[in-house]
């Protein structure tokens, strides 16, 4: 009996891969299976080839597999494109009549998808629901789960649409369940339902609401746009303003304006948009105005691969902005980390009055997993402004008062009796322009050295697995966490462990040295071409990585390929 399956649904842009994909995620999750889902789509609105990939398992899963057990072909080209990545005992669910396919292939499981769609709903548009039903029937999921998920997905479309979709799914379900073709794929549903299905972007957005973000300004750019959409959906309910800016320069400056005026603010973009924001990052550093910046990486330079993934902005983000000032850069590797580190980002930004980054990428931003509902007690908001009730008596306020920690008490303009001067020029403690050498030295120490000293004391600890006594340690940051963790587990008997960095700046040098101390071999795993993490590791710890496993074709690592690659390093 199989304990996990990989399902791929492939078709052209505009065929609704995302809709069926999210319905499948919820269906399998509710049926008691663990899921990991990612999507591969082209930068076009119609045509081409897109696929949605879903891994379902009786145990938690964190990364994609190389081969599919079931391919659902919603158009004819999908068969040729994905036949090569089908498992040897895999099946292709397809409609041979519709696609006019004469040739036989032992993998074919011919389901009259389009005929059943027309029969149930009088339109081929219902083919996705037929496919959904056929997948449930093939994998041993009860029809009640199919019906529930369709009820929910088409809630706003009226009873007729729901009825037709359910009928379409039922016909696909009956067809597949009656066939022996997919008998090997019936999984045991073992986990209690009730958990959430969230993408990385969903988790960041939920956390931003929790953390009290009241202003989000951005210019649409894949893969960050999901956050803007998410926040806009809930903006009225939580009194949040989501403003689509005229460009990324405006987006970052607007977030800073809102933050200066007293609210928690955030912006989000990808590398190209972030290139435009850099001056604003520097402005945040100089004016000591808190901001949270989401950077969802995608392959560059320039426009690159707009809808694909890469981790090549590591150096860019830790060095972004002209001049020297403190910052923190979080690199979440799971949906859970994306949530908790976003809350922490808001708290730290306010505490140190600095820019704090959430460095994600397309694969983390747009992949989904089932997770337990986050414990809000562990996502507490910590405030570091002068509260309104204590503001009234404050008269001669110095925005940049020199302190031992480098952090000046921050007042909200209009709350205090005095006024707040913030300046992008070098400034005095009051915030007025100065060219004085001594003041300059004190202010640089304040903004850089003193704040960095504080930030280093609260670095998010690296996550290690099987590290103690391991001969070979994989080291990664951000979205590779899932695949690195599973690869290390698969090679456990060969003494392979891993270190995942959820924060790369300030760099956790001491922590890594402690963890990596005795390992014979350090191997970084990175979705970039120049081994940026390895270089950073060497620069910050003096310890060089022995090798790096790099992938820069715009696609995420898959577990099977990585296991082979690491196997060669052992």
């Amino acid at each position, binding site marked *: 009996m199989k304990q996990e399956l990989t399902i791929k649904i492939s078709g052209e842009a505009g065929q609704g891969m995302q809709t069926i994909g999210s319905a499948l995620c*919820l269906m399998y999750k509710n049926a008691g299976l663990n899921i990991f889902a990612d999507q591969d789509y082209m930068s076009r609105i119609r045509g081409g080839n897109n696929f949605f990939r879903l891994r379902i398992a009786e145990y938690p899963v964190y990364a994609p597999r190389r081969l599919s057990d079931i391919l659902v072909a919603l158009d004819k080209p999908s068969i040729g494109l994905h036949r090569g990545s089908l498992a040897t005992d895999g099946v292709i669910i397809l409609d041979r009549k519709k696609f006019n396919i004469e040739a036989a292939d032992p993998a074919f499981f011919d389901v009259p998808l389009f005929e059943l769609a027309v029969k149930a709903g009088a339109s081929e548009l219902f083919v996705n629901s037929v496919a959904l039903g056929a997948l449930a029937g093939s994998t041993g999921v009860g029809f009640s789960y199919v019906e529930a998920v369709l009820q929910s997905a088409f809630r706003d479309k009226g009873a007729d649409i729901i009825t037709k979709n359910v009928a379409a799914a039922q016909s696909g379900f009956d067809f597949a369940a009656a066939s022996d073709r997919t008998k090997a794929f019936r999984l045991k549903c073992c986990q209690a339902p009730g*958990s*959430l*299905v*969230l993408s990385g972007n969903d988790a960041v957005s*939920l956390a931003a*609401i*929790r*953390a*009290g973000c*009241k*202003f989000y*300004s951005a210019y649409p750019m894949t893969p960050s746009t999901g956050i803007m959409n998410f926040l806009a959906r*809930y903006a009225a309910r*939580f*009194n*949040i*303003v989501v403003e689509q*800016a*005229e460009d990324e*320069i*405006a*987006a970052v*400056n*607007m*977030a*800073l*304006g*809102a*933050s*200066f*005026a*007293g*609210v*928690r*603010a955030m912006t989000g973009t990808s590398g190209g948009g972030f290139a435009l924001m850099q*001056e*604003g990052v520097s*402005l945040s550093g100089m*004016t000591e105005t808190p901001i949270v910046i989401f950077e969802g990486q995608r392959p560059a330079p320039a426009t690159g691969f707009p809808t694909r993934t890469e981790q090549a902005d590591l150096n860019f983000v830790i060095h972004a902005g002209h001049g020297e000032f403190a910052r923190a850069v979080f690199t979440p590797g799971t949906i859970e980390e994306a949530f908790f580190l976003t809350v922490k980002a808001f708290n730290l930004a306010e505490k140190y009055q600095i820019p704090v980054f959430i460095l994600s990428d397309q694969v983390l931003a747009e992949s989904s997993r089932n997770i337990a509902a986050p414990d*809000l007690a562990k996502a507490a*908001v910590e*405030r570091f402004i002068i509260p*309104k009730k204590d503001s009234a008596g404050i008269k001669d306020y110095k925005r940049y008062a020199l302190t031992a920690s480098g952090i000046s008490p921050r007042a*909200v*303009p*209009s709350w*205090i*009796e*005095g*006024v*707040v*001067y*913030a*300046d*992008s020029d070098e400034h005095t403690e*009051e*915030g*007025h*322009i100065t060219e004085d050498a001594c003041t300059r030295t004190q202010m640089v120490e304040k903004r850089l050295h003193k704040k960095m000293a504080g930030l280093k004391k609260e670095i998010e600890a690296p996550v290690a697995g099987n590290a103690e006594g391991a001969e070979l340690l994989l080291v990664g940051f951000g979205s590779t966490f899932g695949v690195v963790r599973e690869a290390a587990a698969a090679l456990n008997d060969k003494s392979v462990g891993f270190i995942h960095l959820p924060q790369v700046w300030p760099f956790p040098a001491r922590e890594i040295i402690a963890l990596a101390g005795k390992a014979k071999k350090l191997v970084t795993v990175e979705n970039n071409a120049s081994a940026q993490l390895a270089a950073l590791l060497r620069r910050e710890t003096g310890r060089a990585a022995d090798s790096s496993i790099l992938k820069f074709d715009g696609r995420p690592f898959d577990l099977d390929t990585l296991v082979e690659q690491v196997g060669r390093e052992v």
Partner: protein
Amino acid sequence: MATLADFKSNDEIAWCPGCGNFGILNAVKKALVSLGCEPREILLVSGIGQAAKLPHYLAGNCFNGLHGRALPVAAAAKIANRSLTVVVTTGDGDCYGEGGNHFLHNIRRNVDMTVIVHDNQIYGLTKGQASPTTDRGHKTKVQTAGVILDPFHPLEVAIALGAGFVARGYSKEMEHLAGLIIAGISHRGFSLIDVLQPCVSFNKVNTYEWYNKRVYKLDEEKDYDRTDKATALKKACEWGERIPLGVLYQAESQSYEQRSGLDRRPPLVDEPIDDIDISALFKDFT
């Protein structure tokens, strides 16, 4: 009630003697006093340039940000904290050049704020290059054969984009300018006041004498109808022999705060954020 003395700043003024900016500073202070504003309720936002230093020279909250970027900062500060009266002090290079895109889109955004552009038709701080409003033929160290680009026409652009308050002042006419600032701040939505401001150091063409000879006040034209867009646009085109001062165009339109519904919700800055319960959202992801 705050007096002129309450708006006095301790910061030393770094403008050249005779600079047109002094007239603007005095007009701003006078307008704020007349409106009954308290320093704590004012937010002056600026970018970079000589105009951008103005916020330091009076007592009021100040965000002196980046070159060209005053408008996005100002708009968002107002959105976040509606109790602030937001005034932007900017220059022709800052607002119409480096910040041109923000100028266009913040007119569309129509957040309640007043934008005072110190328009000296030259780059002062970088020592005398052409600005977007420098007239054709004006020779500089860079434009050695004279400017060959057509000038940017801020008032025409603002009227065309639907700005609800479009005015021109002259720094030498301090009382008149203070009146325009009072009207601009009182207007709900984006208000533009372009101010002719002689640069005594780097603009030897558009001097006090040059402006004095040409300016006239629209208030003195009996039948000028500032609510008629076509008339206003025509007047905005007038430049050269005669230059009109005053409110060229004024129209009521809904501000960003009204269109977004912000004005009917608690100010963002007053929202408690200590323990926002998001658990009710979880069911949308099950």
